[in-house]
Structures are given as C-alpha cells and as structure tokens.
C-alpha cells in the first residue's frame, strides 16, 4: 500500500464514522438492544477477509501434525471464518427475532 492509498482509506474511515454518528443518534432508546445486535452482525463483515484468507493456498508456513500437512494461515482463516459466520448469521437472526416483537399499541 502506498501513501496515497492510505490517505484515501483514512478519508473513507473518518467520513464513515461521521455518517455512523449521524445515523445512530437517530435510533430511539427502545431499539438500542436490536441496534447493538444488528451493528454487531454488520461488524461480522470481517467474514469477507476470512473468506479470502481461508481460500488461499499459501505453502510458506506449514505445520506437520500426525502426518497431515496443515497450512497455519489457512487454519487461522478457517477459525476466523467460523467465528465471523456465527457473528453474521446469529446476529441478523437474533435481531430479526427481537424486532418482530416490537408492536405498536391497539393492534395486539
């Protein structure tokens, strides 16, 4: 990565934080728990990094265990992928479960 790219990403980072502040301050307190679990599911976006890492076959660093050759980076990627998938799938599912309970008065 060169400096121009870094500055560019930094711009995006700072501007996204501003957008985040604007959007999130408008979420009413009654939805703060679904906001957390929904935001949490979004932070599972790291899943795309996990996909790339666990799909790479890089043979630089391998570990031999019980006669099977394991690529350390790929194994780390696999665990990252499992964790991130739990985060994404679990997070969106539980948020939906909560949100469907919120009902307005007089139409029970």
């Amino acid at each position: 990565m060169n400096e121009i790219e870094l500055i560019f990403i930094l711009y995006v980072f700072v501007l996204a934080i501003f957008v985040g502040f604007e959007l999130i301050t408008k979420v009413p307190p009654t939805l703060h728990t679904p906001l957390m679990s929904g935001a949490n599911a979004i932070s599972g976006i790291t899943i795309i990094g996990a996909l790339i890492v666990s799909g790479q076959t890089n043979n630089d660093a391998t570990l031999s265990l019980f006669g099977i050759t394991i690529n350390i980076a790929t194994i780390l990627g696999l665990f990252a992928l499992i964790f991130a998938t739990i985060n994404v799938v679990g997070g969106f599912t539980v948020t939906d479960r909560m949100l469907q309970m919120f009902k307005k008065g007089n139409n029970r």
Partner: protein
Amino acid sequence: MNSLMDITMNDIIQLVYLIAAIAFMLGIKYLSSPSTARKGNLFASVGMLLAIVATLFNENIISYELIVVGLITGSLIGVVLAKKVQMTAMPQMVAIFNGFGGSASALIASAEFVNLSNTPDKFPILMISLSVLIGFVTFSGSIIAFLKLQELISGRAIIYPFQKTITAICFISIIALSSYLIFSTTSTIAFIIVISLCLLLGILLVVPIGGADMPVVVSLLNSYSGLAAAVTGFLLNNLLLVISGSLVGAAGLILTTIMTKAMNRSLVNVIFGNFGATDSSDSGPDDTDKIVRSTSFEEVAILLAYADRVIFVPGYGLAVAQAQHQVRELADLLESKGVDIRYAIHPVAGRMPGHMNVLLAEANIPYDKLYDLDDINDSFDNTDVSVVIGANDVINPAARDTPSSPLYGMPILNVDKSRSVVVLKRSMSPGFAGVDNDLFYMDNTMMFFRDAKDGLNEIISEVKDNLL
C-alpha cells in the same frame, strides 16, 4: 491503469461492496423507527449476503473446501444460538457475538502475519498489531462479560491486589513487544506472546467491573468489534471493512456515551472505578430510626384497581424473575378497568442498552407505552401509583437530593413524586451501588417483599377474583 471499458472481476466485486455498504447504512437508518426496523435488518443482511457472494469470486481464492466447512459450521452454530436464546439472556448473547466478531478480525490479522512474515514493510505489521490488540481484547473481555452475565462467575466486581498495576504492565508489555515486531524483527515467538498478552488484557480489564456496569462494557466491546474490523480493513486494503467497521465503532461509542451519562460517571471511572466491589450484605441499611412500611398483595391490588394513572418501573430484578409476561397480564387487567398504564425505562435499567424494552416487547407490550427518562419524568407528579419492579439505584432520590451520596448527579426516575409507590423487591438489600435507598422509607412508599413473578401473580389473581 485500465481504461474504463476494461472492467475486471475485481471492479465488479468492489461495486458490489459499495452496494453492501449502502445497504448497511440504510439498515441502520431504518432502525430509527420500530415500524421500519425489521426492514432495515433485512436490508443489512441482504447487503452482507451480496458481499459474501461477491467475495467468493475473488481471484485469490483457490480452494473452496474449507470455505464450505466454515460457512456451514458457523451458520449452524449461529442459527441455533439465535433461536434458542431467551430474551432475558440477550445481554450475554450480544456479548459473546461481539467476542466472535472481534476474534475473527484478530485471527485474520494473525493469518496475515504468517503470510507476510518476511516483509520489510512496517505499516502492515502495525495494522496487524492493532487488529490483534483490539480483536483479542474484545474476545477475552466478551467471554468474561458473558460468564458474569450468565452468572457462571460472580457478577460482582472482583478486586485483587495490584490490579491496576498488573493491567498497566500487561498493556505496556503489549506495546513494547508490538513495537519490537514493527521496527525490529517479525519473530513468531514474540507474536504469540503478544496474542497471549492481549487475551490476558481483555480478562484483566473486565474482571474488576461489576454486573450493573455491564451496559457500558457491552457497548464498549461492541464498539471494539467494529474498530477491529475497520483496522483489518486497513490491513487488507478493503474499503467495505473500513466503512462497516467505522459504522459499528460509532454505534458502540454512542451507546457507551449514553450509558455513562445515564450513570453520571466517566468511562475511566466505570472501567477502573471498581464500583459494586463491596459486599452488599456488609453495608446493609442502617435502619435504626427509619420506618419501612411493608404491604400485602391485597393492598397493592386494591390500590392499583382504583387508580387512574399507573406507571410501571422495571429493572434488572424483572429480568431475573422473568416476570415480563406477568407485568403484561396485570396491565391488561387494569386497562380493562380503565386504568392508564405507562412504563418508565431508565437507560441503564437491566444489563445492556434497551434490555427492558426488548423484554416488555416480548410480552407484547406496545412500544409506544414505553417512555424514556426525559419523556416521563414530569408525569410522576400526577401519577397515582408507581410500581417499581426490581429496580433500585435508578430510583434513589439521593441521586437527586443528597450531594454526599455516591450516586449524586445520576439522573433518576422521580417515582417518589407520585402519590403512592409500591416497590416489589425480595429484600431490603441495597442496589448495585451499595447505597441505601431513601425511597423505601418515605411515607408514600410501600414495600412488597416478594419475588417479582410470584408477587405479580398474587396481585393478578386478587384483581381477577375480587376486583373485576
């Protein structure tokens, strides 16, 4: 430089990422009202699905076996956890999900470390160190928060000698070793030690924080899980990770601020203040000259049945007793008799932001009857009965009136201004702050010493049998 006509697969993937980023922002935007919130969550999840599918076409992905294994395993675990969890256990569920997200980012950074081992570049190693620090602290911190909230370990603040010194040494060692990795040599041993120290730091930071401060901890860990993703985005040169990570980082930070404000404490005080470390039985109320009026379910039932305006004030005790459905049943009975029922929700009632709202929504209580602190505090003056269910510090008038109280300055619900107050509580034990509650000794306060669920059930049958 490609000409504009020369569209590569990578360009298409980047465009799909842009759509995903927009979907996430719209998703959060739709959370501004409960009526559109579900649509927002759907938007965000579709955005996520698009991003995942697009990534599968990445040119660096060669084998798909592990990807299939990982996606299926993770999805199964995620769905089971999300479907099985009880609403009362939502704080620990969110805590553990934060931990998974944080550790995923840190593991990716670790994998990059293995791949980059011999790079002369300092910047990637800096980003790897940051991602490992934030991600693994989030992971182990979330596990401790989970264990505390699930009451697998004591929910109280756990204090040990030299606690702050040990935490500081741990943090400084991480910085020192990381600097060594960045500026000197990329030693694998040093890297493994850094990972272990980061995991230790997460534990050291959360262990001394008590249960009722968990709303702050969970919000902060939420913010960290986003920041970890953003830093990993810098590392992988991936804008979608940076954008989504910053959104989540901002969300967690805002919630953290709201929570600390609602406690009138600084973030530093919450993290290092050791609040709630005192054993509540040691600092029992000094009741030598103060009179407590204890009441029965019959009396509470009559009081409620003949009231015009009633406000329910739920707290963590409601969640512990799982009494949300009883609250709804009692409210329905009273409403059928023409009583006006509202609910006052303090921002830090329960164990995470919005905890009480989710519980009451589960019991089918309409969200437009739930009022935030600022929106209802003026209404207590013309309220006949306030029913406090398992709340304590958030209604202690000392926070408003007694400058010497440790709670002083914390915004409270003014239940003491209502004509009568019924406190449904198992015993006189003080709340989390370990401070005696003046409300319990006031002339207009009646104490109903019962478990929330049992007490409400008794009141419900009394109203049904004799007052309808």
